[in-house]
């Protein structure tokens, strides 16, 4: 990036993020990523079905620890992600400017929004159960308590636009409640996602909680949608035909499906992206002496 008259810059190899490590695609494939103006930026890894499966294994392995962590702890970790992201602001401004062709000032605002969104979601970790749980007054001598629990491993097809803010807006609500996830990054603009993986890797997020794949969304999403060890899928980034194919595949093990919908990433996100991947568990116990 810092090519100038006297020194040749040292470029970064953009790889996948699976189980806390940065492997290349096992397939050895890559694809050229260009800026909004068509300038070559980098060769991103083009993940395969096998990479997607490895990512699911990593997410499943991370699930007991992450879902079993205290909500306070998960909130702290997400806040830490926001801190690390803030520190890399300049790097993301450059990447967003390249990807979207927006002026640096606008890109800076988008990074700030992404940081603020992480802080907002971080605060939900220890509040979601109070808001969506309940003590239910049953007609009998029983204590009856309902509380939200994470669905499990969630696949997320990130939106094509908003390579950072869109991405943060889809993965943060999934993991803050204790799910682990496999994210398929924006196919068009995957580089900020890989850089975000570097942020996650240095933010006390346990390996495997967030796994990030780059590559062809139509190639990867159906495998994740049909994977029997994935419990839910967010189809936000899918065009209609891919969403239909994925929702059909997801029926095989009755995944929770969040269908694509028009979303203004600048607006207040509300709670629906969190509740889409929560289960309600109700526990009964008799009261008596």
């Amino acid at each position, binding site marked *: 990036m810092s090519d100038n008259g006297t020194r040749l810059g040292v470029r970064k190899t953009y790889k996948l993020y699976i189980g806390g490590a940065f492997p290349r695609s096992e397939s050895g494939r890559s694809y050229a990523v260009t800026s909004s103006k068509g300038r070559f930026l980098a060769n991103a890894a083009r993940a395969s079905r096998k990479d997607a499966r490895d990512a699911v294994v990593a997410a499943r392995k991370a699930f007991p620890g992450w879902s079993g962590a205290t909500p306070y702890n998960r909130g702290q970790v997400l806040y830490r992600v926001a801190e690390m992201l803030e520190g890399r602001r300049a790097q993301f401004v450059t990447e967003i400017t390249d990807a979207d062709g927006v002026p640096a000032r606008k890109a800076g605002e988008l990074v700030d929004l992404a940081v603020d969104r992480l802080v907002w979601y971080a605060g939900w970790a220890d509040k979601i159960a109070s808001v969506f749980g309940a003590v239910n007054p049953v007609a009998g001598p029983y204590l009856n308590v309902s509380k939200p629990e994470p669905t499990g491993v969630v696949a997320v097809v990130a939106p094509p636009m908003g390579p950072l803010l869109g991405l943060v807006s889809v993965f943060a609500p999934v993991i803050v409640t204790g799910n682990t996830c496999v994210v398929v990054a924006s196919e068009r603009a995957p580089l900020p996602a890989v850089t975000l993986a570097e942020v996650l890797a240095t933010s006390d997020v346990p390996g495997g909680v967030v796994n990030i794949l780059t590559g062809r969304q139509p190639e990867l999403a159906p495998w994740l949608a049909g994977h029997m060890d994935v419990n839910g899928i967010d189809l936000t980034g899918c065009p209609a035909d891919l969403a239909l194919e994925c929702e059909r595949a997801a*029926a095989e093990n009755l995944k929770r499906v969040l269908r694509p919908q028009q979303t203004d990433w600048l607006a207040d996100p509300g709670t629906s992206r969190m509740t889409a991947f929560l289960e309600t568990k109700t*526990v009964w116990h008799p009261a008596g002496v």
Partner: protein
Amino acid sequence: MRFEYAPAPESRDVVEIQPSYGLFIEGRFTDGGGAAFKTVNPATEETLAEVARADEADVDRAVAAARKAFGTWSALPGAERAKYLFRIARIIQERARELAVLETLDNGKPIRESRDVDVPLVAAHFFYYAGWADKLAYAGFGPAPRPLGVAAQVIPWNFPLMMLAWKIAPALACGNTVVLKPAETTPLTALAFAEICVQAGLPAGVVNIVTGPGATGAALVAHPGVDKVAFTGSTRVGREIARTVAGGRKKVTLELGGKAANIVFEDAPLDQAVEGIVNGIFFNQGHVCCAGSRLLVAEPIQDELLAALRRRLATLRVGDPMDKNTDVGAINSAAQLARITELVEAGEAEGATRWSPACDLPERGYWFAPTVFTGVAQSHRIAREEVFGPVLSVLTFRTPAEAVEKANNTPYGLSAGVWTEKGSRILWMADRLRAGVVWANTFNRFDPVSPFGGYKESGYGREGGRHGLEAYLDV
């Protein structure tokens, strides 16, 4: 010790069954386009009535009627909708005995259960959701949550009227109109409910009932005029429905199968646990999606617990569902009996040990003796597949971690049971069991205020409680 009981038959005169029933569309009973079918009493194989079969044109008419009624119904002040639901709840109470008898005749479940469990819960469900109709703004879904429109609801045969209540009460409270398809083998209480809607003065088209086989339900679910699909039944059909609605705008909730573990630790109160195990698997002949069909017992108490369980099972009274002393009634249909028989034979063939108490089964009707399998491995079909009958599979464990591992080793996740006197262990277990309902030191309790529904392949969405409103609101 053997107790002799004199017969204590409930009178079937309290209900008048018509020779034939039509579809209930736009407030009137009409003929169906398909060939009428018979519904039989599974305890006697006697035909109870002929019932109309709705074809695609009938489904179309019913959806159109529901659509036509939606505008006015959804625009009614919540307090007015509430009053209709309160009226319905009261009429159910007034006609409770008749409904209980009708349910028992059509379904085969003991009158003790339809009278003491099903029908009271049906009335309670309408009372509960009636009260929400004018309080939706306070339910946590925003200041003015909107209904979805026309709800297509398909329900099973195991709790016919109760499943109807779980579907219709919240749908109407939220301002939706409904087309409901009862199960093919148990349509009669739904048709009685149609009369109750008429008695309550419910506007025409708000509730429509179409009877028929699975094909009728499939046509209803696939109908483009439907905004919401709610289904209770098998995971296989649930999967088909999820495929059918894929890529569309219909909101879906599915309450599907289960293979619940009922876990008994060595410090459990043994007599209570035995009652819970019996209630868990033999309630409603085991035709219960959340039945405790896998007993996980701590190895040290296995012999003691099984001896107590066998003693208790020997006292169960199996037979005439209309007898007030009957504990276990008839299997709902010949097809279900064949399914149970097939799985039980597989259990024996795979090497598990089968045991049933001595009991005389009636000659006519569909019957299956309460059955316990010991020596069951996790790989056996009777440990993996939903039997949906009075068949208990017993497995053992040594540590709490192993109990959790085995309990969760299923694609289902509807319910689970834990029996122990140690409070911290209950909470530890409850946290780790991947199931929508956990009964600790009890089993098979239901209440309108309590959310019910599954994890994993047991479906999605919740019925009951504040949570149950979400399925019928545009949120």
